[in-house]
């Protein structure tokens, strides 16, 4: 299990533009970090680089387990990472039940992982609806379901709270608290403050 995420002297560029240079920081089990910065500062790119979808220009991204052994990054990414952005990969033509089951199955889940997800985000009344018929908030709750349904240590979240109303923000805060209590790690790109106390990592950038 990922216990520690370490970025060392990371430099990311998109096209000709340099997003940030020499970024170093570590995230421990039980830590939550709010990733802030102006639009275009590179929050999403950083999350995608940690998930292995973007190759950094320079620097290292390392994952360690509880005994400080370095994990094979490919292995760690395939088994221990959730990347959840505003593009949630849900198919409009399929029902919420099919999509939740697929996402949890694909990422690997516990015996009753899907039921836990349904219970955690109140998805029961939505299950038989086609995804295209869900509102933005309902759709986000369905997408968040995979975090609960498939236990993975490191959550990389991109604006997770956006379309949620106050009630579900509170629920999601509780879900995040439990994840941290179980030695999870959360890195969330946000504009508003997270509903639970978090360290902050500011990428700055032009305003």
């Amino acid at each position, binding site marked *: 299990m990922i216990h520690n995420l370490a970025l060392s002297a990371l430099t990311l560029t998109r096209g000709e533009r340099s997003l940030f240079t020499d970024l170093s920081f570590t995230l421990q089990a039980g830590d939550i970090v709010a990733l802030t910065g102006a639009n275009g500062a590179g929050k999403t790119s950083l999350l995608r680089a940690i998930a292995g979808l973007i190759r950094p220009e320079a620097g290292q991204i390392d994952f360690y387990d509880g005994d400080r052994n370095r994990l094979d990054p490919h292995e760690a990414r395939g088994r221990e990472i959730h*990347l959840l952005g505003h593009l949630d990969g849900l198919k409009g033509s399929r029902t919420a039940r099919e999509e939740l089951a697929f996402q949890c199955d694909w990422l690997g889940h516990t015996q009753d992982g899907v039921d836990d997800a349904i219970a955690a985000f109140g998805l029961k009344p939505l299950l038989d609806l086609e995804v295209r018929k869900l509102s933005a908030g309902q759709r986000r709750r369905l997408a968040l379901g995979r975090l609960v349904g498939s236990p993975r240590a490191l959550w990389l979240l991109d604006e997770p709270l956006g379309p949620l109303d106050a009630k579900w923000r509170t629920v999601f805060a509780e879900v995040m608290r439990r994840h941290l209590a179980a030695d999870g790690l959360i890195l969330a790109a946000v504009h508003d403050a997270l509903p639970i106390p978090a360290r902050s990592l500011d990428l700055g950038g032009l305003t």
Partner: protein
Amino acid sequence: MSTTRRPGRLAKWRHTPPDTSDPDTPEPGAPEPHAPGMRGATRVLFERELSLTWGGGGGPLLACGFFACLTAILPLAAGGDLKTLSPVAAGVAWLALALASLLSLERLFERDLEDGGLDLLATGHLPLESVFVIKAFSQWLATGLPLALTAPVAALALGLPIHLAPLTALAALIGGLGFAFTGALGAALALGAKRGGLLIAVVVLPLFIPPVVFGSGALDRAAAGLSPLPALALLAAYALFAAVISPFAGAAAIRNAQG
């Protein structure tokens, strides 16, 4: 680090408050995390792909309809005389088959790139190479198989002798496998490009030439009373070659599009 998942505390956070015991020792009776393994993940993705191609857009029907229309137009354009049509029947059927196989390629990966599905697929247990194989294979089942069933009908309508109908279906089935894998490679290469559909056609049609040559060659040989086996063997070799090579190139193209 062993590659098997061990039941860490994450798996059961809902049931137990955070404890201070050694997280490496699973408690007796704790629910085992069910890692789907390669087979399970393959199956769920395969099911999803089939339900997307068969369920939503009517892709197979579209391809078959296009194929039927194309072969119906030819007699109208060239005259309905079987003496002029039957010599070109095999060739035209294969040309129509190649064009009909292009139709649904554009959405194969583009759909998943647009809605973030590729990010989800990239963070799963299976490598992107396997994802490519599963998607190309389901493309074959959803498009190649119905087309292979339509092909004998179309070829007979153009004047192909009736005893060649089973061979037509068989050749179209094998050729369809080649079409699906080279087509999926083209779709992966065109990912993220503007007017991707046009680009796919330009990239893929040259790669479709060998199966068209071998496939119609098999039918011509059989019509002339020769054994179609050499041409069928070449056709099968092409399909297998495409199935082995294209996943690596296709997965690299997908990674490139994601980055």
